[in-house]
């Protein structure tokens, strides 16, 4: 059972597959899981998106009617705008802040660096469920910590999650600090690792050529950090578009009555939240599936664009 490809060996596909039987055995479980729990539901979901399915149960083929229905729905457009704003600000804010923090941390002593990395990463370890509930408590308008701190510096009181103009921003701020995938905790660790991998002789050569601090940062650090930044943007965007948990936990008034979530007045309804409400609470499965397909299309386009840049810029 060796894998040598000698010229005399039988090259028919059957023989090659038989010789690789161990490999197929090794990928069997993931492959079956993929077919049953990924591909099959995906095909069914595509079907749902073009059939009528209301609270009364599954119905017949209706073509693109569900897609037309969501494009007529003002809440869908609101959700789409919220999702885009959320993705841009959370990903941009987190990556930007991480670059600033990493640049400030880079020259510090190793122990200080480890301590700060830990301080930024700890909220991500605590789980978004726990952290979302804590922030909700701190945002509480009457007894919460934030309005108390605001009063000390002479501003507020704010409505935070109860105010349509502040609710989405309140969730974004929480995510920038605490999201396990796209918050500053994970980002600072990756950016610092990338900074450490830049060879010091590049800086020494630039110094010999008379380049100042700013020039060295712009001409060496920034270009060499681009692969990491692009990676963070891809992962962050995909993650932002599927955000559900924090919105559910911070805006619904009670479990089992999540219809009230995503508010006030749909100000925190994202596409992912919209599909959840349509599928599991309103039982408008056709509409929910159509909205999920739109979500998929957006994620796909963003990912392809970013991957293109990733692949062209990665080599240095």
């Amino acid at each position, binding site marked *: 059972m060796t894998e040598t490809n000698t010229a005399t060996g039988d090259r028919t596909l059957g023989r090659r597959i038989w010789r690789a039987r161990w490999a197929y055995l090794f990928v069997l*479980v993931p492959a079956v899981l993929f077919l049953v729990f990924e591909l099959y539901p*995906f095909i069914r979901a595509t079907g749902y998106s073009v059939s009528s399915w209301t609270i009364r149960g599954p119905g017949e083929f209706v073509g693109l009617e569900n897609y037309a229905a969501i494009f007529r729905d003002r809440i869908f457009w609101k959700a789409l705008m919220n999702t885009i704003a959320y993705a841009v600000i959370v990903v941009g804010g987190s990556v930007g802040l991480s670059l600033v923090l990493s640049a*400030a941390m880079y020259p510090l002593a190793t122990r200080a660096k480890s301590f700060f990395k830990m301080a930024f990463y700890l*909220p991500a*370890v605590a789980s978004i469920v726990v952290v979302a*509930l804590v922030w909700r408590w701190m945002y509480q308008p009457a007894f919460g910590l934030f309005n108390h701190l605001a009063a000390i510096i002479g501003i507020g009181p704010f409505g935070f999650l109860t105010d349509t103009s502040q609710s989405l921003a309140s969730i974004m701020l929480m995510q920038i600090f605490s999201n396990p995938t796209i918050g500053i905790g994970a980002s600072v660790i990756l950016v610092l690792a990338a900074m450490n991998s830049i060879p010091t002789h590049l800086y020494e050569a630039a110094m010999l050529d008379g380049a100042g601090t700013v020039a060295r940062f712009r001409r060496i650090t920034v270009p060499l950090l681009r692969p990491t930044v692009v990676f963070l943007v891809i992962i962050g965007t995909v993650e932002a578009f599927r955000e559900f948990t924090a919105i559910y*936990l911070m805006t619904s008034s009670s479990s089992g009555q999540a219809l009230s979530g995503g508010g006030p007045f749909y100000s925190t309804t994202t596409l992912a939240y919209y599909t959840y409400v349509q599928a*599991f609470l309103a039982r408008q499965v056709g509409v929910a599936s159509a909205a999920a397909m739109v979500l998929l299309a957006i994620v796909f386009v963003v990912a392809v664009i970013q991957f293109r840049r990733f692949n062209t810029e990665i080599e240095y």
Partner: protein
Amino acid sequence: MPRILAYVIVGSMAIASLMPLYWMFTTSLKDQAAYMAQPPEMLPGDPTLANFGQLFANPNMLRWIFNSAFVALSVTGLNLVFATLAGYAFAKMSFPGRRWMFWIYLATMMVPFQVTIFALFQLMVTIGWVNTYWALIIPAMALPYNVFLMRQFMHTLPNEILDAGRIDGCSEIQLVRRVVVPMSTNGLAVVGIFTFITTWNNFLWPLVILNTEEMRTLPIALSTFQSTNETDYGLLMAGGVLMAIPMFMIFFAFQRYFLQGVTFGGLKG
């Protein structure tokens, strides 16, 4: 940038980052009068464990802890096995279809769960897995991200050692057990730690598929502590502390796996 300025900027952000956790711990030690006091007590004046007592007075509390631990441990164990085997196959074995299978697999990581969740739910209804451990464990027992991670990791193992094993007459499964696994402890640790944490904290799928009180996992149970009329924040924060403590223990035990980070220079490989 002067060093003192760096310390001020980074230090104040670190305080902001840790503040919510501090607030959770201190609120969990306050009774209702104390946590609603104005101005808020920065240090609990009269700390009490009453909230934790109330938490465990709930007859389902131990069951919820068991549910979370059982599901997270099962998913982690299964992922270690299947991600190792599949990661090794994708990294070091040649078989017809390897490339396109891997690419399809990578692409599925991009698909938001919202796309398939309802159809998956319907499938669970059909096979009778609604409100069971099966629904939480089986679909998650070989997560694509873990297979990808192990594949990246095993790509760096030297082929010479594997070939030497084959020449000595090892079958592929013996090779995995005796050579690949001992050389992959770092990768296995990363997969194990992150799978456990992700599963322990998982929210959307348990929310959808579980429908009785005793089957709930901790995150779902915790979310029901918020009530329509008046939320008991002391109790809620105590629940949060209880849920977070195992995660903090794992974090401090395996710190280096969290804080070392990875670089993306050589991802193309």
